[in-house]
């Protein structure tokens, strides 16, 4: 049995009347790659932001290595965030710094290392993602795939024990996606990390994931190994994992009847 890294207990997240999660319970085992799947708007990104405490749960507790993150002050949470790497969907590279400075910045802030050692570490991180040669480029000079890899290198700058990936494969060509898949898998295994990947690329992410959690409307619809979910008899799980058009998983946002909307008196928006 693997040790639990993150234990989410009875977490509820609401924005006013809207409930994103209610009474969510999840355990994330140490050293594994966990894929978070689900239709758009089901709360996948919010789940990553909850773990990293960029947003706060309305109720419930989130334990990280046994420490309740929901009870920590912002200053203490900053120390915990250094153990987490977050690869944002937008990359979030610092636009006024070049590639080298983007990666060196967190190392420089959190250590008293001499500049030549910081340089070596930074170049090693860039070499891991194959972009050592692009260290002087500015973020706007990078292609989408290169920016993704720089973001990956930067999120690994402080050697985190937990990596949170938000849609890491979006907009990647097949080669770029394959490169990123390999990197995620290799880093997780070599650096003894735990990875949580939010993605819509079901087939690709299932190749590297040890465990898959499928969300629907803020609830866990199913969880298990990739094979278990792919072979699930559950109608919605089956529909989502195979990307079928017909099924119970709704494509339309809840609304009144189409007939009424088109034929009734128009209501001012």
């Amino acid at each position, binding site marked *: 049995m693997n040790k639990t890294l993150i234990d989410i207990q009875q977490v509820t997240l609401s924005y006013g009347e809207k409930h994103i999660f209610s009474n969510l319970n999840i355990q994330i085992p140490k050293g594994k790659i966990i894929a978070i799947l689900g239709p758009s708007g089901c709360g996948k990104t919010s789940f990553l932001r909850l773990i*990293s405490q*960029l947003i706060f749960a309305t109720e419930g507790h989130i334990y990280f290595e046994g420490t309740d993150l929901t009870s920590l002050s912002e200053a203490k949470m*900053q120390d915990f*965030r250094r153990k987490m790497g977050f690869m*944002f969907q937008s990359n979030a590279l610092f*636009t006024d710094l070049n590639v080298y400075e983007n990666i060196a910045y967190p190392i420089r*802030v*959190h250590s008293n290392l001499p500049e030549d050692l910081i340089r070596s570490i930074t170049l090693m991180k860039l070499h891991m993602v194959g972009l050592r040669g692009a260290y002087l480029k500015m973020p706007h000079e990078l292609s989408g795939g290169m920016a993704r890899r720089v973001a990956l290198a930067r999120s690994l700058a402080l050697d985190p024990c937990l990596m949170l990936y938000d849609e890491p494969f979006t907009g990647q060509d097949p080669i770029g996606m394959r490169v990123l898949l390999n990197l995620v898998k290799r880093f997780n295994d070599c650096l003894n990390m735990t990875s949580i990947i939010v993605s819509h690329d079901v087939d690709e992410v299932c190749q590297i994931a040890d465990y898959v959690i499928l969300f629907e409307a803020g609830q866990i619809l199913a969880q298990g190994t990739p094979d278990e979910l792919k072979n699930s008899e559950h109608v919605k799980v089956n529909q989502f994992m195979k990307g079928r058009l017909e099924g119970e998983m709704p494509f339309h946002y809840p609304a009144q009847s189409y007939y009424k909307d088109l034929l009734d008196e128009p209501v001012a928006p």
Partner: protein
Amino acid sequence: MNLLLRNLGFRVIQWLNFIGRSGYFFVQMVVKSSWYRGFTQDVYKQIYQLGFQSLGIITVSALFIGLVLSLQGIHTLEKFGALSQLGPMIALSILREMGPVISALLFSGRACSALTAEIGLLKASDQLDALKMMGIDPIVRVIIPRFWSGVIGLPLLNILFCAVAIVGGYWYCTHQMMLDSGMFWANTQNAVSWELDIKNGIIKSIVFAVLLLWIALYQGLNCTPTANGISKATTRTVVLGALCVLGSDFILTALMIGDW
């Protein structure tokens, strides 16, 4: 009636919420002001962006204001045979009021609006969250250097503004209207006091800088991270900034005028 009261209550709560949040933000800025490695470098960089890059608009505006003030002064004072008081009139109105107020309004339009937009865009592109994920407090690394650079930069711009405007006024009345240069400077020197005029003008400028930077940074940090949200926050920065400068100028003048 019930609905009216409810709306009124909602507005009051919203206003109190705004006051509380912005007050807390200001306290955070002051309390967290710490010297970290690279702080001075960050402040220099921001002084360059906020202050040095505003030199053009400040200098040109100051020159024209000095010229116009001189022109208006000549035509008015001539009627009373008081042309000898032109120098003091230009110098005192610039040092006491126009210098601090106009340089603050120009700074608000040129630098503070850009600051709000910059912070808003950092927020919209997740760069502030990226800093948090590195265990770095955005208030300390992003907000505080900008705050202090503005607080240092605006009084310096005010001093420059006053100098250029007075020299502009002097040049017009001595070189164009052929007034006596010695009389201009002698009367100005007699009328202007370091303690009451120059120092009070600089104090005003520091207060305006604190208010403007507070508004600009708060609006940037709390804007809705969309194009529309950033645009609204930028507008609010300029409008609120101008109102606060003019309002606080009245209060400061009322407090200082006893000495004049």
